């Protein structure tokens, strides 16, 4: 038994430093790529900047600013569809970033398809915090408020002072709202998939075949809801009365 434990200890003492070393090396490479991408961007080599930034994102880095930079590089590289896609992804991470908002609005002015006006929808008015706070902020606010509620309850149980009970009741409502919002965000990201049209123009057809009837056309940057996926095709809904099929490669899931 002792020899087994000793073997484990020796193995771990060798593997853990190796993992740490690999991770550190990868981090260094990501940093170098990022710096190179910024230099390429400044030099006008937007395609190279796109390649480098997308390689960073492909390595699992999820960062709103990285996505913002990707949107910028795509837009400069005359790739409106991808630009809007990455801006949309960035908005989920840093929705309040003014630079992002500005560039996103500018990109939208370049799109051709009229979007449904959702600025004054009842959902946006009654659940305004959902659209102004990042998902991360909502999650941690929910956890914090939940903890505060329970702490108030515990203290009240210990001291039997009514003030703590009232404080717990007051904190309970916002905690509940943020917990519900966080759960909805999880549901939304898992089941309510949105996508951006990537090519300059595509035909939305009645079926999966190329010779299916063309129902309508969409252009780069158009935002659609993915209804379902079938054999490398997406059934998308653009508006209440416009639904059809496109090849999956023509849309980027946000």
């Amino acid at each position: 038994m002792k020899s087994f434990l000793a073997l484990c200890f020796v193995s771990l003492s060798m593997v853990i430093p190796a993992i740490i070393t690999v991770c550190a090396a990868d981090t260094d490479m990501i940093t170098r790529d990022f710096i190179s991408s910024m230099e390429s961007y400044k030099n006008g080599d937007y395609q190279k900047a796109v390649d480098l930034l997308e390689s960073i994102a492909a390595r699992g880095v999820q960062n709103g600013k990285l996505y913002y930079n990707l949107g910028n590089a795509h837009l400069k590289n005359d790739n409106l569809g991808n630009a809007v896609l990455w801006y949309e992804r960035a908005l989920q991470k840093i929705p309040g970033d003014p630079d992002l908002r500005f560039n996103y609005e500018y990109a939208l002015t370049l799109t051709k398809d009229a979007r449904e006006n959702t600025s004054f929808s009842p959902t946006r008015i009654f659940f305004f915090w959902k659209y102004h706070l990042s998902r991360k902020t909502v999650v941690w606010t929910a956890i914090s408020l939940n903890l505060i509620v329970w702490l108030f309850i515990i203290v009240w149980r210990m001291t039997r002072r009514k003030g703590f009970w009232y404080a717990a009741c007051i904190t309970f409502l916002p905690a509940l709202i943020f917990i519900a919002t966080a759960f909805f965000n999880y549901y939304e990201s898992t089941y309510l998939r949105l996508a951006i049209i990537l090519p300059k123009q595509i035909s939305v057809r009645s079926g999966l075949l190329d010779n299916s009837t063309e129902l309508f056309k969409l252009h780069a940057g158009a935002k659609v809801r993915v209804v379902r996926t079938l054999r490398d095709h997406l059934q998308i809904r653009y508006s209440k009365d416009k639904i059809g099929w496109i090849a999956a490669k023509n849309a980027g899931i946000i």
Partner: protein
Amino acid sequence: MQRLPNYILKLSIIIAVILTASGVSAKITVDAQVDRTRIQSGESLELSVTIENSNGQVDISSIKDFKVVSQTSHSTINFINGQTSQKIIYVYTLEPLIKSGKAIIPRLRVKSNGKTYQSEPIEILVNKVSAKTKPSKDLDVWITAKVSNSTPFTGQQIIYTFTLYNSVQIHEAKFSPPEFLGFEATEFKKTNAYKKIIKGREHIVTELNYVLIPKKTGALVIEPSSFNFGILDLMKNRDRSGRSLPDFLMDPFFNPRKMTKHTIRTLALNLTVKPLPEYTGHGGFSGLVGKFELKTDVETSNLKVGDSTTLSVTLKGQGNIIDAGEPDFKLPDAFKIYEDNPEEKISLDRTGYSGYKIFRKALVPVKQGSYEIRPVSLTYFDITEKAYKKLTSQPIILQVAPSQTAQAAPPRLSSQVSASRKQKVDFTGRDILPPKEELEAVQSQNRLSLFLFILLLASPLPLLAGLLIFQRLTRNDTRPAILMKNKARKALKAAINTIDQQNEMLAHLYQAVNAAIFSIANRSGEALTWKEARELLTQCGQPPQIAQQASDLLSRVESAKFSAAELSDHERKALTEDVRRLFKELLP
């Protein structure tokens, strides 16, 4: 002839039916008559169908050679020598559909009480109107029609004038214009009326005008206009012997006058519409035909970046200006351009359409420099010169100085009156903001997984559960041993706190020692003797020396409590210390 109100006709028919049913008069006859049997093409005649003693309807669907222009009816009931008769008279105005020859009014059928009655057929001779026939100025009423130009170009506006001359009073006049096939026709609403002496007689001359724009080329015919009117017959103001009648007999009340209806027509007008010559010039042809002028103007030619000025292009003239579109502007890229609604004033008079259109654009320079607004050109077909003519405006030079504020002002359109001095700030250029270069951008912001989120939400629950368990355990323990143990400790604590007050201290110590012994015995109680204490402890398995020590201590406390001797501080502390030591032995 005026149409009778329906209810009178219906009432007559009802009476007639009643009378017919009563057998007062039973013979039913149908008779058709015309006011004349010779007419000229274009004239009309009156057909009267009289039905006696029946309320049947006349079937006029068999009339093929005539067009029924109008229809009236009236009825009469006569009582003559005790005999009653009733008549319904239908009057039709007919126009022949043939130019010349015989036209037939066939037998007209009337159905009554299941039987069919017929009138006799009538032959009408229609004479062709001679093209050379001209309205005679010897007549009391005549009409003419003419066009201002019988060989216009397509798109050229011409005037069709219908003129009525009458030297007698006419009634119930009705003018029926032609359809103007091949033309776009607009009536000039204002009629022109004046008096004119023709062959020594005063005539009233009334002119109606239409503006016609030919839409087809080649030979076009404007069909005759027709004019219906009535003239009251001249009254005979002399009797058979030639004597003049008294004036009061000339009053219409005593001498009702009959009105004779007439229909006259103008001649058809033959026009030859010429196509526009082939356009071979540069630039597009605007489609305008007439006579036009073009002028460009700018509000101010010295500007600063962000200022606004208005460029106006005025198209003015006579012709189909109503069809004029915006000329092609070629403006420098250094200007932002804002459209303004065109202003137009087009009037229609006896010479046709004329007026102007002003096209405006607000220009906002975004760069300094000197810029030329190229001449605006427009090609139209000049009807006086019978050739295409290109209008070209003068070039305009705009001097743009740098802005002091470097802010572009919004357009200020000349047709708008600005109520406020505040101006909307517009973009003068568009670009995206730069990338975020901080290395923070590569730090992953992975979202908390749903599982971890739920775990963190639930984390306070074990803490609360532990507390509840602890409270439950401590609050509900009612065993005598625990209760007495707590009581003993509380009493000892109180004794230590009241060490300066001997009686209270001794009372607490006495209570503490008793409670400690009862706790060991798992019993409740208040007081013990030292013997009871020793026996109790011994029975509970305590070592004899502990039992003896406890009984001795109880005895000492009891003696001190109930004796009047004052204990010194040292003695009090020693006694308290002994009790504490006993507690350590008994209540670890």
